[in-house]
């Protein structure tokens, strides 16, 4: 405990340096904007701002980028409550009761509870991250190539399962992602693979053009020609204070949402989205008056909003402790660390304590900044929603080009972004989820390296994956995941993932 406090002191002395504090504040501010504006998710926001961090030291860069991530979770609730449009996918559930409360004239308290819940959940989950990541990293030092390979397979399959939609389609996306990730020079033999004479492809296809193309460009193409200008309810500052009853009713959902969100966040998948669905379902089930849900129950805002913030923090546990991203957003954060020459993995916390503890402390500070930003300044953020989409999308397109080009000053990256944009657009039309593909691209080099090293260790025997206990545990969990995915084929009726996909689709239309 003494060591943790000492490290935390180091973290705060790093995070409170004026420069780091400034970048933390900017991250929170941009994150809130990214969350408020529909169509610009945290993934696109982080990817686009990645090049601007190249001139910064790694600690400032990761503080800025992760600020965007958790800041977006705060901002996303604003549009959900005031317009019934989720600014960010993790705020879909907040639309239901948040907007109902706004229609009853309780938009202010809904926003306040959402911000307070996000603050409590964000802070509590930072404590969880702080306590869990270092021992997990220590344990992960026992992992060899077979364990890493099994863990990565498990991570990819869990993501495939949790993404929603048919598992077969998600598996194809994972395999495609892994194949895309193998383009470029093979680090073992020096062979060029699938690069067709293009030297620029030697380093492979980067995560940023893939992520911006699949999520940013395809979103612009899908929503092209729409003229969205819904009515915006503008709350007054004096109406923000929740009543004593609203506060009392929200406390337990905030607690449950924080715990659920953090635990779900550690699991691979779009955890920040899934956690809100589960939190909403839990709150409805434990409520003495479930009939109030959908008509303006404050618990329906408090639970999911706390859960998505806690989940975004939980997702950083495997990323920082194991070097394994659990979704596209941690993957881009990891890529940002690698751009700055930091090797992710179990040694990160030990070798780079300033980065790890600086990030932890900046998240404590950031959550407080976000509470201040999201309550009194909500009226200002709401004004951004008045920008018509026909002005917004060319601006986003321009930012996509800048963001992708600037990573390597490479026009080939911009071509990759466009190709991925077209691919993402077609994939959406044919009901394929692009998220597993992004993770496949990121993990491909580690998957291949651990696979080939494991086989070299065992003189070509695949039995090595089932002879080592930790690897067996991961493979058994993988098998369970496959069985769960096959369940709908045997048992008729929709499982929770299909319902989740349906709600997402309904919200999109």
């Amino acid at each position, binding site marked *: 405990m003494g060591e943790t406090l000492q490290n935390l002191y180091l973290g705060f002395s790093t995070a409170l340096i004026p420069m780091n504090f400034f970048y933390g504040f900017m991250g929170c501010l941009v994150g809130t904007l990214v969350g408020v504006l529909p169509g610009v998710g945290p993934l696109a926001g982080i990817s686009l701002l990645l*090049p*601007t961090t*190249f*001139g910064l030291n790694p600690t400032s860069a990761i503080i800025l980028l992760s600020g965007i991530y958790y800041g977006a979770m705060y901002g996303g609730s604003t549009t959900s409550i005031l317009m019934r449009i989720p600014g960010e996918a993790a705020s879909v559930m907040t639309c239901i009761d948040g907007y109902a409360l706004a229609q009853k004239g309780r938009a202010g308290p809904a926003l306040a509870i959402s911000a307070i819940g996000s603050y409590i959940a964000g802070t509590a989950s930072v404590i969880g991250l702080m306590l869990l990541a270092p021992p997990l990293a220590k344990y992960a030092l026992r992992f060899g190539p077979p364990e890493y390979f099994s863990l990565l397979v498990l991570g990819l399959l869990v993501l495939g399962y949790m993404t929603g939609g048919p598992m*077969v*389609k998600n*598996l*194809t996306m994972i*395999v*495609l992602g*892994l*194949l895309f990730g*193998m383009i470029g020079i*093979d680090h073992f*033999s020096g*062979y060029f*693979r*699938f690069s067709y004479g293009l030297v620029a492809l030697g380093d492979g296809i980067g995560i940023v053009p893939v992520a911006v193309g699949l999520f940013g*460009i395809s979103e*612009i*193409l*899908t*929503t*092209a*020609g*729409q003229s969205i200008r819904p009515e915006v309810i503008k709350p007054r500052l004096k109406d923000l204070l929740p009543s004593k009853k609203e506060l009392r009713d929200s406390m337990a959902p905030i607690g449950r949402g924080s715990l659920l969100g953090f635990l779900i966040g550690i699991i691979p998948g779009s955890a920040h989205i899934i956690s809100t669905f589960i939190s909403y379902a839990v709150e409805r089930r434990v409520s003495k008056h479930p009939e109030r849900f959908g008509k303006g129950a404050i618990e329906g805002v408090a639970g999911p909003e706390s859960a998505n913030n806690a989940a975004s923090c939980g997702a950083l546990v495997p990323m920082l402790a194991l070097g394994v991203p659990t979704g596209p957003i941690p993957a881009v954060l990891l890529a940002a660390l690698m751009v700055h020459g930091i090797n992710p993995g179990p040694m990160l916390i030990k070798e780079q304590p300033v980065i790890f503890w600086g990030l932890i402390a900046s998240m404590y500070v950031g959550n407080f900044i976000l509470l201040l930003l999201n309550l009194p300044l909500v009226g200002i953020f709401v004004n951004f929603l008045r920008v018509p989409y*026909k*002005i917004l*999308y*060319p*601006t986003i*397109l*321009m*930012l996509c*080009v*800048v963001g992708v*080009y*600037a990573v390597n*000053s490479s*026009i080939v990256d*911009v*071509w990759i972004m*466009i190709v991925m*944009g*077209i691919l993402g*657009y077609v994939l959406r*039309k*044919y*009901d*394929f989820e692009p998220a597993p593909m992004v993770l496949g691209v990121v993990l491909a080099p580690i*998957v*291949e390296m651990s*696979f*080939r090293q494991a*086989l*070299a260790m*065992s*003189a*070509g*025997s695949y039995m090595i994956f089932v002879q080592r206990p930790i690897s067996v545990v991961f493979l058994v969990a993988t098998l369970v995941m496959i069985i769960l995915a096959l369940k709908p084929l045997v048992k008729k009726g929709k499982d929770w993932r299909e319902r989740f996909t349906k709600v997402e689709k309904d919200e999109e239309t």
Partner: protein
Amino acid sequence: MTKDRLSGIILLLLAVFVMIETRVLPLGTHSRPGPGYLPLLLSSFLAILGVILIVWGRLASSWRSVKWSEGLHALAILAGSVFTTLTLETLGYRLTMLILMVFLFGVMERLKWWMVFSLSVGLSFGSFWLFDTMLKVILPRGGLGF
């Protein structure tokens, strides 16, 4: 033909294509896998998944049910993006973005001329100032110095 069956056929063809492309790479042995080993394994797995989609995809909706109502608009945006990529390094960032913005705001969205002018100039030159000048992100200048 259903959506899933069409997807399955495309994935199967893609898998076969990858397998053919892998032939030029050394496979290595089980104990020392070469650069073609895992791509071949993965493309075989992709082929299996493609076949599963073809077999189980008979109940999915028809591929004709996919709506492309925004298709023309999307195609125009894509054309603008391709133009941007082709000219970014020759015309320079500012001039290319100015043309792209005028095209999107003026031709595609038919905004008023003064809005097209102010938004296009503001965004192309403003973003250059913000990213290149202020944030030191190097953006291309092109032959004309823009």
